[in-house]
């Protein structure tokens, strides 16, 4: 990586992440993982939490890292899987299931896209001792694909399809990720948004609000759409 990467703090951690691993992570730290990671998004959450499907495997014994993603993958004729790229999907849509998911599985790390809002961190992540890692760029699909050494399982692939199945990956030097929320529930994105918002009224000078307004419209640009 280039000169900017060199300025950031970097760590490489093994799954399952221990409490002391999590405690040492500051916002904006670059993280790489070794071990086991599983995927779960709306399909998995809804099945397990709303529809009462028994978990297809002992998730808590497997890994405490839940990746909000689905891989670019195909099933080969012999039943094995070919995984190409891996990229996260926007996490804020899954907030409503996470409290129960954390209780059900003991998950401590969510990897995803875009983070959560600070209420979700405060009310759900902090009580469960969980943190959030964001993928980079959205995404470094090829780099993350390289980090997957083996597909250990693809649960519920018949029921939920390739995109929504629970994939279990053995990973090595899997990253980069950035620490978006720490154990205190602070958010790198929200911190950033406050800094960016400070400049916005100047940028908007010389523009004009649309003649035709919309219901619910706001001109408070510190608001977020997530």
């Amino acid at each position: 990586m280039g000169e900017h990467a060199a300025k950031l703090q970097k760590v490489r951690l093994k799954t399952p992440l221990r409490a002391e691993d999590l405690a040492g992570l500051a916002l904006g730290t670059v993280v790489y993982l070794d071990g086991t990671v599983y995927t779960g998004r709306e399909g998995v959450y809804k099945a397990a939490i709303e529809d009462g499907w028994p978990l297809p495997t002992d998730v808590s014994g497997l890994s405490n890292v839940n990746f909000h993603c689905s891989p670019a993958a195909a099933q080969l004729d012999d039943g094995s899987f070919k995984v190409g790229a891996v990229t996260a999907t926007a996490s804020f849509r899954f907030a409503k299931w996470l409290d129960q998911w954390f209780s059900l599985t003991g998950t401590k790390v969510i990897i995803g896209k875009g983070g959560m809002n600070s209420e979700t961190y405060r009310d759900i992540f902090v009580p469960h001792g969980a943190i959030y890692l964001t993928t980079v760029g959205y995404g470094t699909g090829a780099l993350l694909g390289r980090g997957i050494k083996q597909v250990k399982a693809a649960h519920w692939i018949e029921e939920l399809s390739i995109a929504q199945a629970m994939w279990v990956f053995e990973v090595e030097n899997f990253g980069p990720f950035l620490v978006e929320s720490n154990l205190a529930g602070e958010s790198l994105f929200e911190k950033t948004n406050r800094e960016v918002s400070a400049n916005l009224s100047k940028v908007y000078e010389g523009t004009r609000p649309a003649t035709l307004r919309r219901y619910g419209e706001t001109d408070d640009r510190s608001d977020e759409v997530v």
Partner: protein
Amino acid sequence: MIAIDALETAADRLMEKAAIEIPDDYLGGIKRMVASEKGDLSAFVLEAMLENYEAAKEDRRAMCADTGVPRWFVKIGNEATVQGGPIALEAALRRATANATTRIPLRPNRVHPLWRTDHNNNVGINAPEIDYSFEPDADWIELTSVHKGGLFGTDYRMLFPGDGIEGIKRFFLDTLVAFGKRGLACQPAIIGVGLGGSKDISMTLGKQACCLRVVGDRNPDPKVAALEDELIELGNSIGMGAMGFVGSSMVVDCHIECGYCHTGGMPMSVHAFCLSSRRATARVHRDGRVAYRTDPQWFTPYMRRETVEWESTPQSSRKSA
């Protein structure tokens, strides 16, 4: 007559090239942005993306696992004919989409909006979309594969003549700021702006402007070109960079396309392509020759014609893009 096999083979290859190979024009734009980016986190993201482009090419794996919604743009020469006709052509594009999805592999993204039925091949009702355009004095067919995300970064608004350039700037900023936070728009990106047309065509023009024009291209109308330059500068002055981090890397380029609209309105759309800007084009000739490139040359003088009749001038008809 153009053989259907030649078209299907080219389409299959284009799916792969679009998914794996970052177009040079966009890569150059990102490299220039890394050089000028002062925000460490934003620059780190761009450096990681540069590494990702290399990894994708080395491993022949997709740059991004989110296939977006793969779609086709087809330009048909006025003198071209296809073996089996347009029905065979559409079947070939659907087959190539399905086969390439499994072969590369790409993530099957396409589902029924209500039942979430997934054929695991990126094909379904009205998917992939196929847009057509035509070109005078040509006997070839050009296929362009675009894989673009579709959840964030795009918006439409009905503006009015009285909203003026100030209103255009406001809506441009609104879209970039709203979807730029946390990097939901996967910026820095090529931004396409559709101005005028009917509502749906305003969206179509903006989409085509962002996906089918290359970095460095300017609208042939000098005043529109000047507005493109102004919007680039405006977007990069927000103070936001990659992933919404503090920085200046927001707009790699801005392309505006216009369509004549209702006399009382000024509809506008804004579309953000993404950090993988997946597009690839092939010209398939009658004799089966295929030439691959990354510049779709979609907006020709014929596409932008204003007059009732088209005066056929073979030399000038493919100069723009």
